[in-house]
């Protein structure tokens, strides 16, 4: 069974997923960071493929991507690094990246490489539903890869149903329509939206992401979804000195406050 499904079925309590950029802060830090995150108690990971023009990202992830590219990170190098992934990390791994680097690597080759190294799912924010269905779906499915779609407070119920139908891992609920790295301000509107989604009783689990940075926002998100995803706040930590030593405390404080 796909590790993502297993995690959602077996884990009691809220799920914590961490995003970080591959090749940041150092070209070869990718797997060390992943391993440390698992040890510290993260439930699954999203490894970002750096891209020169990350439209959906705020300054923190933009800068980490630029640095990673300067460090020499490419899709090819990433798959090289991930050859040892399953010797060192057992939790689910998703790759998150923009469509152009995937296209240049070759979609079929990309899916095959994911399957080969033990990646469980993919998030491509600028790959829309229509293009996914027409051109990519069969390749993802034949490699047993979950494709994760995003939804926002502006996404219509009809479209959410369609996305639920196409999804086979979880649905990525954006706390608001925003780029990454803004702080979540939970208003009654946001809560209404979270509640609306919860009441739709979707077949896929949901994770809330964008703007989750501390225990308070993580706990709030967990009330309405299966868990939450932390990105920019963790990438910021990776920019500090002795970042490896700081990972356990970062995860602990997210979970326990």
């Amino acid at each position, binding site marked *: 069974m796909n590790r993502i499904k297993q995690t959602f079925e077996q884990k009691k309590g809220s799920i914590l997923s961490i995003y970080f950029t591959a090749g940041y802060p150092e070209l070869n830090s990718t797997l060390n960071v992943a391993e440390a995150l698992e040890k510290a108690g993260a439930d699954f990971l999203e490894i970002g493929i750096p*891209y020169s023009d990350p439209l959906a990202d705020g300054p923190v992830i933009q800068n980490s991507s630029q640095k990673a590219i300067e460090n020499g990170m490419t899709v090819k190098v990433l798959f090289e690094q991930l050859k040892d992934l399953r010797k060192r990390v057992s939790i689910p791994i998703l790759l998150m990246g923009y469509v*152009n680097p995937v296209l240049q690597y070759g979609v079929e080759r990309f899916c095959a490489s994911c399957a080969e190294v033990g990646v469980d799912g993919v998030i491509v924010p600028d790959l829309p539903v229509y293009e996914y269905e027409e051109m990519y779906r069969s390749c993802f499915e034949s490699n047993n890869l979950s494709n994760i779609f995003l939804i926002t407070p502006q996404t219509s119920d009809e479209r959410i149903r369609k996305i639920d139908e196409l999804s086979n891992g979880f649905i990525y609920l954006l706390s608001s329509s925003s780029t990454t790295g803004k702080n979540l301000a939970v208003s009654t509107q946001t809560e209404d939206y979270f509640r609306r989604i919860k009441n739709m009783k979707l077949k896929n689990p949901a994770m809330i992401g964008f703007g989750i940075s501390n225990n308070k926002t993580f706990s709030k998100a967990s009330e309405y979804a299966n868990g939450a995803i932390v990105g920019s706040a963790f990438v910021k930590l990776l920019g500090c000195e002795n970042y490896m030593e700081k990972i356990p405390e970062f995860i602990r404080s997210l979970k326990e406050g």
Partner: protein
Amino acid sequence: MNYQVNENGYYGTFGGAYIPEMLYPNIKELRETYLEMIADPVFKEEYLGLLKDYVGRPSPLYLAERLSEKYGANIYLKREDLNHTGAHKINNTVGQILLAERLGKKRIIAETGAGQHGVATATVCALKGLECVVYMGEVDIERQAPNVARMKMMGATVIPALSGSRTLKDATNEALRDWINNPVDTHYIIGSVVGPHPYPDMVARFQSIISEETKWQLLEKTGNSSPDYVMACVGGGSNAMGMFYHFLDNERVKLIAVEAAGKGVDSGESAATTLLGKEGVLHGSRSIVMQTEDGQVVEPYSISAGLDYPGIGPQHAHLYATKRAQYVSITDDEAMNAGLQLAKLEGIIPAIESSHALAYLDKMKFKGDETVVICLSGRGDKDLDTYMKYFNL
């Protein structure tokens, strides 16, 4: 051959709407309403009324006699430089501001390279009393200072794009990010035939007034509405698409699109997209993109801020792939000299962007009596500083 967009937003294999879900509701709204709105007689009347009384259309089609004599052809200049605000960009912003108004949007955002699109956007926002925010690369803010001042005078906020190469590509990223963060009350007026569907088609339709007028003007002047050659420069490709639009299906008319070679196509400092690029996705559409093997977008270079873009619109990619239009490139030096030549021969100082189209005349061989129309997309006022430095004026 069909050169127009299909119902899924594609021109052959190019186009589409590669956008994050956050932008989907806005793009869907545009997609479902733009054709109907543009076709609405009330919209049309207001659009054409503004083009006539505010922009000053029709723009003249001028037979440049001394230039014609030099090259041995009948060379006509389509004088988009005489439009209000000094370039073709305003044809599109007038159309889009009317759309935005009908969609009930209160806030307008735009990206700009040379500043011409930013100025044209600030202008129509002032006209309609709407809030206007323009993203502009930090590098371009320096080299196009007069346009920054013009935008500010008209009440726009100019925000420097500090990421990447700090030019047009990055300004476009920042505008898209702004739209993601302000999805409800904001309309994004894209300045060229780029972006997710329906933008390339929508902008092409608004710019198509250029070739629509050219046809009847030519008929009036020569008794024949089809020229032998139609030429224009290509940044994202909006003046070229407007200039080509009504000639696309008349295969006897040869279309020439001129890209910026910068310091030379092999110099590593160039913006000749069709020559140096590959198929890829940039700013929401699949097209031809200058990029590394790994799919990272390459930072382009041109002396002209308006052509300093690593992609072209998807319809251009289709015209290139089907060979309907010929894509060529001109270096900084060739363009600068062509600009100076037009000033000396015709008393017209062109934008450096437009000078690229003019410069290609030097590389053509005419059979004598052929008719050529060149889109003079803008005037050179904004570029005086660059001309002064280059020629030690």
